[in-house]
């Protein structure tokens, strides 16, 4: 494999890892606060549709992004209502949200645009396009560093940089702020947080809302930056891969980055090569497709370090009477 091909694969790794990373961090906030969320997929899908629809109609991609975040937040609110207010089963609520998003996006897309459940293609003005970082031209002739800078680091849409900046930001919020300490505490021992006079319900709703915003950005990125428009079921299981990355990362932000880059790399390789020939042994493309899920099961099985979820995860908090 020569250098150019390697750069192209890595470049598409970054693009494909971005929605995973945003959704993974979204899940991290929610699950660290003790609210399991298997509805990441549905929230992304809803955001992808509404962002593409609004960007197409208004011609303004920023309005699209806002609309996408709004759609995702609405579903996050539903999840909060079911799992925090009514103390329902968080997993069942997530399943319901995924189906709700899948059904509603297809239904409304067909009703609004009549193109078989997709939005019309977005023109470039209504998309997030690549940004050229400073000094790209100047550095271009420099061997190795020049192409790396131009291909790999520069030329992505603003949401990509935002996603990568969200990693240190999340680390800082979780481990260096009072809010982060409380958020982690509410996922481990909500009774203790309650005793300290801090609202468990408020903290959990805040976490679910942050999760909604990040899923909204992830969905908007898919429809307005990665691709030009919404297609039915376009998230194609990415919400679940993000969930897998979250477990792989053991609910920690920096590890989440590496896990998402790894799964993004797998997707990039599967996209570029149908079957990979490793000295006579042919790895079929389906193996690449299944690898993130297999890796997650292996990690969950605790054969490679144990993944221990936040202790109060999945448990509705009931105040003692």
């Amino acid at each position, binding site marked *: 494999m020569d250098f150019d091909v390697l750069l192209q694969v890595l470049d598409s790794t970054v693009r494909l890892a971005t929605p995973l990373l945003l959704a993974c961090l979204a899940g991290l906030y929610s699950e660290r606060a003790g609210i399991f969320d298997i509805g990441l997929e549905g929230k992304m899908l809803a955001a992808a549709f509404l962002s593409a629809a609004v960007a197409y109609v208004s011609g303004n991609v920023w309005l699209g992004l806002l609309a996408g975040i709004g759609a995702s937040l609405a579903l996050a609110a539903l999840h909060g209502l079911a799992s925090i207010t009514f103390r*329902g089963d968080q997993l069942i609520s997530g399943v319901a949200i995924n189906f709700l998003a899948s059904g509603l996006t297809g*239904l409304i897309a067909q009703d609004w645009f009549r193109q078989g459940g997709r939005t019309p293609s977005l023109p470039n003005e209504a998309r997030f396009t690549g940004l050229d970082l400073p000094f790209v031209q100047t550095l271009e002739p420099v061997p190795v560093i020049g192409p790396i800078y131009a291909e790999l680091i520069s030329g992505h849409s603003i949401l990509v940089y935002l996603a990568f900046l969200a990693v240190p930001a999340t680390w800082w919020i979780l481990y260096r702020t009072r809010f982060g300490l409380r958020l982690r505490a509410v996922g481990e021992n909500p009774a203790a947080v309650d005793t300290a006079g801090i609202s468990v319900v408020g903290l959990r709703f805040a976490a679910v809302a942050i999760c909604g915003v990040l899923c909204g950005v992830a969905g908007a990125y898919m429809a307005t930056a990665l691709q030009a428009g919404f297609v039915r079921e376009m998230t194609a299981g990415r919400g679940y891969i993000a969930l897998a990355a979250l477990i792989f990362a053991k609910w920690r932000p920096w590890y989440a980055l590496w896990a998402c880059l790894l799964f993004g790399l797998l997707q990039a390789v599967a996209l570029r090569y149908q079957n990979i020939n490793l000295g006579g042994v042919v790895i079929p493309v389906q193996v690449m497709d299944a690898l993130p899920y297999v890796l997650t099961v292996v990690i969950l099985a605790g054969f490679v370090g144990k993944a221990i979820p936040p202790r109060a995860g999945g448990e509705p908090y009931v105040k003692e009477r």
Partner: protein
Amino acid sequence: MEKMPAWADVILIPLISLVLAAFISALVILFIGQSPAEALKLMVTGALGSTYGWGYTLYYATNFIFTGLAVTVAFHARLFNIGGEGQAMLGGLGVAIACLYVPWPHWSIALVAASISGAVFGAAWAAIPAWLQAKRGSHIVITTIMFNFIASAVLNYVLVNVMRPKGSMDPATERFSQTIHLPTLHEILLPFGIPFSKAPPANISFIVAILACLAVWALIWRTRLGYEIRAYGHTETGAVYAGISPVKITVITMLISGGLAGLMGINNVMGEAERLVLNATEGAGFIGIAVALMGRGHPAGVFLAAILFGFLYQGGTELALWTSIPRELIVVIQALVILFTGALDNMVRTPLQQIFMALRRKES
């Protein structure tokens, strides 16, 4: 003292949830500029107004009975098996292997063999998540989700690279032999002089599904194993104290659950397509969750809920055919049913309990 009578829990709560789901679906239909009353009328005539409609309704219902029972059995041990979809996919593979590679002399023998093969494949696919849950504490919801995706990759590989006939572009197996064609409801009812439409794929698997309902009922409420499953689901510590092994119960329950999901293959693969195609399950494994939640843990409830979803499926197909309401409406209704009967259960239950408490206070 019970907060409310048992009939309210079994009948009233699912009914109220259903009414809420129907109400919101009606709003959705209004939102896209169609008439909910017209849509309902069309769904009823399309799904229940003819033996043609009934044939499709019962065909879909057969799938949902199997997957609904699968989720129900697991629920009794307080295990949430989201992997019905993957287990049904593998079950279909098992059925296809049994049907393709052995020259069965008669469909009845083939049906027995295919049932066993499908159930074994489905159970095997559930066995790994079950073992990981029991022995290593890996969350079964996550592992079964992952196994759904792995199943779809496995099936894709097998159909594209192994079982596809030479020269065929279509990722599907060969057609099964005509000697093992399962009798359809039309063929079963003809000797009794009952006319039933020839076209729909409803077949003898429907009767197998009813038998499965009876078997699950007997298992859960009439056997020692069923008692252990319920005891374990009710309180794990109590069950352990009573000498019930959590590992054993988890694994056995999931094997039964996966086996039931795998059995679905005799209906959609052997009964309908008569060959294995990609995405043969069409999400039936997920509908099993909604069916199980509506069915309130009882096979009779699962049966009724499966018929209801069969009706929704066939009615929704008719809607998509004759109006501009797309098929996705079914998915929305399915989501709403899961939401109201599962996640928002307390929203319906708490006010209802208060009403019953108030009524009782008035009486006394």
